[in-house]
């Protein structure tokens, strides 16, 4: 129900901003967003739109926002970006990795428009900044809960595509599950899709049938939780958005993408004239990754342990990829006490020791 009210508020906000737009169209800073999926996906795009709404709520009278959903990556995104820039947007957020080349190409043509590309690494001209979230920090917390909660010692992970971000998540989950439960093993299923509820449900089902009782998912729909709800004793986590409808179980906690603070910070900086190009990769500490409420289905001591871990990650005293860690083949990756550097992490393409199976190549 909560999300529904949010949507109504969203619609009202939009209606209001439409009225406002007609009246003071010239004075406001125009902010553009392009989304890869529909806002109704309940995950990735939904959370970016929540960020946009947070931005409107915070700076409503100084800005107006425009957005476009379901923009295919490739040639179409380049056109949409150009049209947005032509329409007078001063800052544009491009919220999918696949927009990387298009963002840089258009940015080169519009030096006065600021571009912010999510999850990419290319900043070819001075007006392109990149931002991303350290989702693997959230995975570490989920992994800890998973390791403590599993009774069959089998946890499952539904991956979308074998890209560094997903591999970070698998490794981080496994490392921290193993830390609290040395007997744990992880089964990875690649769905080869970001969003296909029926297939995600099938994948979850396949995992459950083979004895998995804790499921982590890196695909965007709530289908995995809906499937988990059918079998007593199986738990899972909200992904990208809180997925609170599945509380208190099977959804025992969640990793929430929280883009609002970043959007507000950047647009505020542009309004103040303090805007500068940068590369942001923030996690729990920076507020971009939030851990959703850990429900009562989790014993109090496990909850405390998970929260302590989240806190230590947030204040920087702990890094989820700290040695000693070996690669899958047994060779040394990180020595005792050594922390993984961001360069390796952002291109991560191997499993850590103990995970069975190959990353599809």
């Amino acid at each position, binding site marked *: 129900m909560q999300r529904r009210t949010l949507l109504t508020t969203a619609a009202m906000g939009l209606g209001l901003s439409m009225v406002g737009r007609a009246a003071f169209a010239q004075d406001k800073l125009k902010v553009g967003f392009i989304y890869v999926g529909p806002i109704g996906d309940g995950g990735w795009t939904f959370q970016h739109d929540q960020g946009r709404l947070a931005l409107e709520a915070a700076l409503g009278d100084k800005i107006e926002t425009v957005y476009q959903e379901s923009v295919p990556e490739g040639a179409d995104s380049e056109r949409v970006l150009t049209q947005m820039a032509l329409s007078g947007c001063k800052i544009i957020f491009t919220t999918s990795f696949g927009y990387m080349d298009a963002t840089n190409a258009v940015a080169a043509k519009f030096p006065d428009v600021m571009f912010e590309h999510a999850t990419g690494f290319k900043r070819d001209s001075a007006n392109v900044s990149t931002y991303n979230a350290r989702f693997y920090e959230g995975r570490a917390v989920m992994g800890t809960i998973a390791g403590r909660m599993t009774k069959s010692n089998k946890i499952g992970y539904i991956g979308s595509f074998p890209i560094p971000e997903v591999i970070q998540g698998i490794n981080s989950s496994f490392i921290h599950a193993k830390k609290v439960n040395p007997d744990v093993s992880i089964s990875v*299923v690649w769905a080869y899709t970001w969003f296909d509820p029926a297939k995600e*449900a099938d994948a979850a089902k396949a995992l459950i049938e083979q004895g998995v009782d804790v499921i982590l998912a890196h695909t965007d729909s709530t289908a995995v939780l809906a499937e988990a709800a059918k079998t007593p004793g199986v738990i899972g986590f909200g992904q990208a958005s809180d997925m609170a409808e599945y509380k208190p179980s099977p959804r025992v906690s969640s990793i929430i993408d929280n883009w609002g603070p970043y959007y507000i910070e950047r647009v505020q900086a542009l309004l103040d004239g303090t805007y500068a190009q940068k590369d942001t990769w923030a996690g729990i500490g920076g507020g971009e990754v939030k851990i959703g409420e850990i429900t009562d289905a989790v014993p109090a001591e496990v909850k405390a342990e998970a929260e302590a871990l989240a806190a230590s990650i947030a204040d920087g005293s702990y890094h989820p990829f700290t040695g000693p860690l070996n690669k899958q083949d047994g060779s040394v990756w990180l020595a005792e006490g050594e922390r993984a550097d961001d360069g390796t992490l952002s291109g991560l393409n191997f499993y850590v020791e103990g995970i069975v199976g190959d990353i599809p190549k």
Partner: protein
Amino acid sequence: MDLSAINPAVLVASLMMAAVPIILAAIGELVVEKSGVLNLGVEGMMIIGAVCGFVVAVKTGSPFVGFLGGAAGGAGLSLIFALLTQVLLANQVATGLALTLFGLGLSSLLGQGFNGIKPPATGKVPMGPLADIPGVGPVLFQHNLGVYLSIAVIAAVWWGLKYSRMGLILRAVGENHDAAHALGYKVVRIRIAAILFGGAMAGLGGAYISLVRVPQWTDGITAGAGWIALAIVVFASWRPWRVLIGAYLFGGITVLQLNLQVANVPIPVEYLSMAPYLITILVLVIMSSGRGRAAAAPAALGQNFHASR
């Protein structure tokens, strides 16, 4: 690799459930095609059924009424197709594709505000002690109504087409509409009825996805199931029971490939995910080459009928 973890009985049970939406949509489309009409808009009708079924179920709190709503929604959309192709004589292939485009857009508009809500639960059919028989129990007696309904519909369509007078007329219309017209049958009316039946079945299949299989509403939830249903009809060479075989085969390979991944079978994932399609093609080739039965398609399929006198 641990193949022992894959329990065949559980696998069969879950493929039976996975195949229900495809079976319902495919059997509806089979009737439509038997009447000589090719409606490629199955995906559009399914997703409208999914959203209508979901909205109605949430509003009324009854999954049963939801299923009716889904069927009504699918039939309603198919009415556009019927009007265009049967009354206004538009091209069926293009109209069907346009129907899918329209259905995808409309469903997302209708579903606004329903994303992420949980629908009322559809329970399993109580089978008492039968459900606990090892092996057979999970396969045969632990399903929800949809699984039994899908099989019942296939049986009904099979019987109807083969033995009833209505089925005979329907097939006559599909084979040769001019002859059927000359015999005094109302070709257009019969086809419209078939199209509406196909729409209702596709809608029911869609509602099954949003109410039972995934239980939720999200944009694009059918994710191509309608296209698979179309493929299954051809695969089945327009025979009802083969729809069941085709859908179980397809569903089975899909479920199996995920299970093989979990069991760490060292086959590259990309080949596994292609497997359902490749194996369907292979079986199709074997079936069509076996007895040279390419002529199984209704003779008037895709042709519009206009009574010139």
